[in-house]
C-alpha cells in the first residue's frame, strides 16, 4: 500500500471569463504520495460529481510532461515546487503531511481564464503563426544529408526546441512577457542553416505579434527560466533581442 498524507487544498474557482473568482477549500484526509497532482484533483472531482457539483476545470492531456497542456500556479510557483517539472509530473510526495496548498490559474492579460484553472493560451499560437516556421512547402527539398550541421549547432537548436509551450514563463514573469517562449522558437530555427534566410524577419514578426497579443516586455527578471519545466535558457532572449534590433535597423536602412 502506498503511504498517504493529509492536505488542505485551496483551489481557485471561477465560473467563466467574466465571472469573479474565489478560493474553495478542500480538506483531504488520505492523499496517496504516489499520486500525481492531477490524480489528486481527479479524486476531488469524482466526489464533486457524485454530489452533483461542478468539478474543477483544468487543462491536461498527455500527463507525461510533453504536451504542455497542463499548468497551474501551486503555492505561488508555476507548476509547483519542484524544478524542471510540469504539473502533471508533480507527485504528492513533494508535499509535507498536513500542508496547506494554494492552487491558481496562470495569471496574465494575454491568457484570459476560461474556467477555474483553465486559461486561453491561443496568443502563443498567434506568435508562431506570425513567423515561427521555416517557409517551405511539402515537396522535394533535397536530400536531408546535403547540408551537414555541426553537432553542437544541432544540439543547441534541439535545446531550444524542447519548449512545450505551456506558458509557465509568462505566469512567472512580473510583466507577463512571452520572451522566453518566443526566443526559444527563434533560437530553434535561427541557429540552423535552413532557418537563416528568414532569421531577421522571423524575429521581428514574432516580437511584434507578442506585443500586440498583450504580453509585457522583458526587463530581465529571469523568473521565466526558473519556472520553465524544460529548463529553457534566458540566453536565448539576448539572442532574439539582437536579431530583432538588427531586423529593425535593416528595415530602416533599406
Amino acid at each position, binding site marked *: 500500500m502506498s503511504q498517504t498524507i493529509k492536505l488542505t487544498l485551496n483551489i481557485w474557482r471561477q465560473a467563466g471569463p467574466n465571472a469573479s473568482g474565489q478560493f474553495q477549500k478542500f480538506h483531504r484526509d488520505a492523499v496517496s504520495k504516489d499520486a500525481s497532482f492531477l490524480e489528486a484533483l481527479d479524486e476531488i472531482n469524482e466526489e464533486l460529481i457524485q454530489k452533483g457539483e461542478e468539478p474543477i476545470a483544468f487543462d491536461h492531456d498527455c500527463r507525461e510532461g510533453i504536451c504542455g497542456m497542463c499548468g497551474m500556479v501551486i503555492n505561488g510557483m508555476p507548476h509547483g515546487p519542484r524544478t524542471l517539472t510540469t504539473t502533471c509530473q508533480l507527485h504528492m510526495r513533494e508535499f509535507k503531511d498536513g500542508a496547506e496548498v494554494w492552487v491558481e490559474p496562470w495569471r496574465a492579460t494575454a491568457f484570459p481564464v476560461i474556467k477555474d484553472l483553465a486559461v486561453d493560451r491561443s496568443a502563443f499560437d498567434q506568435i508562431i503563426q506570425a513567423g515561427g516556421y521555416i517557409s517551405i512547402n511539402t515537396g*522535394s527539398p533535397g536530400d536531408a544529408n546535403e547540408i551537414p550541421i555541426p553537432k553542437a549547432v544541432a544540439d543547441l537548436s534541439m535545446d531550444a526546441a524542447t519548449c512545450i509551450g505551456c506558458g509557465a514563463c509568462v505566469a512567472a514573469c512580473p510583466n507577463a512577457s512571452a520572451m522566453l517562449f518566443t526566443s526559444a522558437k527563434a533560437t530553434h530555427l535561427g541557429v*540552423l542553416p535552413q532557418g537563416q534566410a528568414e532569421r531577421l524577419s522571423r524575429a521581428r514578426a514574432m516580437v511584434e505579434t507578442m506585443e500586440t497579443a498583450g504580453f509585457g516586455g522583458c526587463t530581465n527578471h529571469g523568473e521565466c527560466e526558473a519556472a520553465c519545466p524544460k529548463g529553457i535558457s534566458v540566453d536565448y532572449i539576448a539572442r532574439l533581442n539582437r536579431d530583432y534590433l538588427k531586423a529593425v535597423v535593416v528595415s530602416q536602412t533599406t
Partner: protein
Amino acid sequence: MELHSNAPTGPIETAWDRHRFEMKLVNPANKRKFTVIVVGTGLAGASAAATMGELGYNVKAFCFQDSARRAHSIAAQGGINAAKNYQGDGDSIYRLFYDTVKGGDFRSRERNVYRLAQVSVSIIDQAVAQGVPFAREYGGLLANRSFGGAQVSRTFYARGQTGQQLLLGAYQALARQVGLGQVELHERTEMLELILVDGRARGVITRNLKTGQIDTHTADAVVLATGGYGNVYFLSTNAKGSNGSAAWRAHRKGALFANPCYTQIHPTCLPVHGEGQSKLTLMSESLRNDGRVWVPKNAADVTKRPQDIPEADRDYYLERKYPAFGNLVPRDIAARNAKDVCDEGRGVGYPPEREAVYLDFADAINRLGQHTIEERYGNLFEMYERITDEDPYKTPMKIYPAVHYTMGGLWVDYNLQSNIPGLFVAGEANFSDHGANRLGASALMQGLADGYFVLPYTIGNYLARAGRDLAKTPVAEDHADARSAKAEAEGRLKAFLDNPGSHGPDHFHRRLGKLMWEYVGMARDKAGLQKAIEEIPKLREEFHAKVRVPGSGASFNQTLEKANRVADFMELGELMARDALAREESAGGHFRVEYQTEEGEARRNDDDFAHVAAWEWTGKGNTPTRHVEDLDFEYVKLSQRSYK
C-alpha cells in the same frame, strides 16, 4: 459487401508512380473552390492540413486540445524509420517494406506498405528542411539507431522527443498556412457527427468546447486523423483526451471498422502504482538497445533488492529464449514474455500483483560510461526518477507492458478513402499499414506519409473526379441532412445533462478498462471474449442509466466531453471483443491462447484468416456484420515469424 483495395496492379516498385500518373488533377484555379475538413492535428492531420493549404485548397482544421501543437503524436519518444540507408548496413526500401509486412505478421496490404517504405525517405528530407533538429554525428550528418526488432540502423531521432519535434515541424507548417489565411483552424473544437449527403461525406457537426456552441461545417471532403482508440482500456499510454469518437461516429454512419482487435501492448511502460492511477507512462523502447531485461530465477527472490540478487540467480529471459534478437525482439513478444514471467510469480512490481520486470543498465554503464547513457536516454531516466522516486543509474528500472497503439481503425482503400466516398482516414485512425503489429518507430512514419505524401494526391484525385457532382449539390448549413446530424448530436448531449445519475464518467470508464484488460488484453481466449461480449453491454446500460454530468452544455464542461467519449468506447470495446472472438488465430497484437505453437508463440492460420476483417454497423443492439478483404502476398513469402 465487396471490399476493393483499389491498389494498382503490376510491379510493386512502380505502383505508386503509375497510380499518381493516372490520377486526375484539380485545376490550380479551382482548388480554392474546394473545402476540405481535417479533424485532428497530430502528425497525420497537421501535415495533411498544411500541405492541402499549400496546394491552395480551402482547409478547415479541428482539434480538441487548446492548441494544434498538443496532439498526442507529441509524446512519441523513440524515433522515425526511413529507408535512407545512410549507414550502408544493407537497408533499402524493399527491406523496410519486407520488415514491416513481416513484423505485422502478414496481415497488411503489401502495396500500401511498399508505398509507405518509399515515401519514408522523403519524410526525412521534408522534416530536415523544416528545421526538425534530428540527432547528428560529429561530422554533421544525421545519426541513426536500430530500434525494436530491426537489424539495420534506420531510425532517425531527436533525443527522446522525436514525436515532439516532428509534430512541431508539422504544426509550424500548419501555423504558416493559418497565418497566410489558407487554413482556418478551430482549437478546442470536437467533432460530434459526420454529415452524409447522397452517401458522400459532406461535413461535420462540431462542439466548441469553450462555449459549448454546436456548429455545422460543410465541405467537399472530410479527413479523420483522430488517432487510435487505446483509451478503451482506460489505462494506456495515450493522452487523457485521446478518444475514438470521431471514428466511431463515422462507423455508425456506415464506415467499416477494420481489425479492431489488433492492439499493441508496449513492453516498456511504468508499472501501475495504485487505484487512483489515471494513465500509464511509456519508456521508449530504444531503452532496450542498452538495457537488459530480467527477473529473478526463483520466485522467492522477488522481494529482495535487485542489487542483492547475484548474477547466477537472474534470468535474462529474452536473451535466453531468443539468442539472435535478445532484448530487441518485437514488441508483442517482449510484452507477452513479461506477462508470462509475472504469471509464474517472478514479477518484481508493487504488491500484491507484482507486475513488473527489471530493465537493467548496469552493463551498459560499465561498458559505455554514464555520460553516453545520459546522452542517449537522459530525459527518459529523469522522467523515470520523477515518477517512481528511484534512480535508474543506480538501480534497475521496473517496467511492465501497457496498451500503447491500435493497429485497427477505419477501413480504407489504397487511397486512404473509407467505404464512404469523400471520407478519408489517416494515421493511427485508419487500419492500413501495420497489419497485426506495428514496428517500433513506424507510427510517426505512417502519420507523416499519409498526411504529407498520400492524401494531398488522393484527395485531389477524388475532388477532380467528383467535382462536378459536388458542385451540383452544394450543401449549406441548413441542408436537411446537416440539420438531422446536428439534432442527433444535440440529443445525445442533452440526455447526459438530463440524467440524474450517481457517478462521473471515469467511474464507468475504469470498469470498462478492467474488463477489456482482463478479457481482451495481452492474451485472449474464447470463454473470456464471450464473457466480455456479455458484460460490456450490461456495463453500457448501467453507464447510460447512472452517469452524472453536472453543469450545462452551453459552457466549458469537461465532464460532458468525457461522458460523450466514454459512451462510444462502451460500443467500440464490444466490437473489439467480437473481432477478437471471430479471429481464430494468433497474429501480432492479437494473441489467442488456443492458437499457439509448442514454444508458446503466436500461431497464425493463413488458410482461413489471411484477410482484413471489416465490420459494418447494423444498428443499435444488433450484431454487426463482418466483411472480409482477402490479402494477397505476391512479394513477401508467408512464414512463421521466428526470432529465435
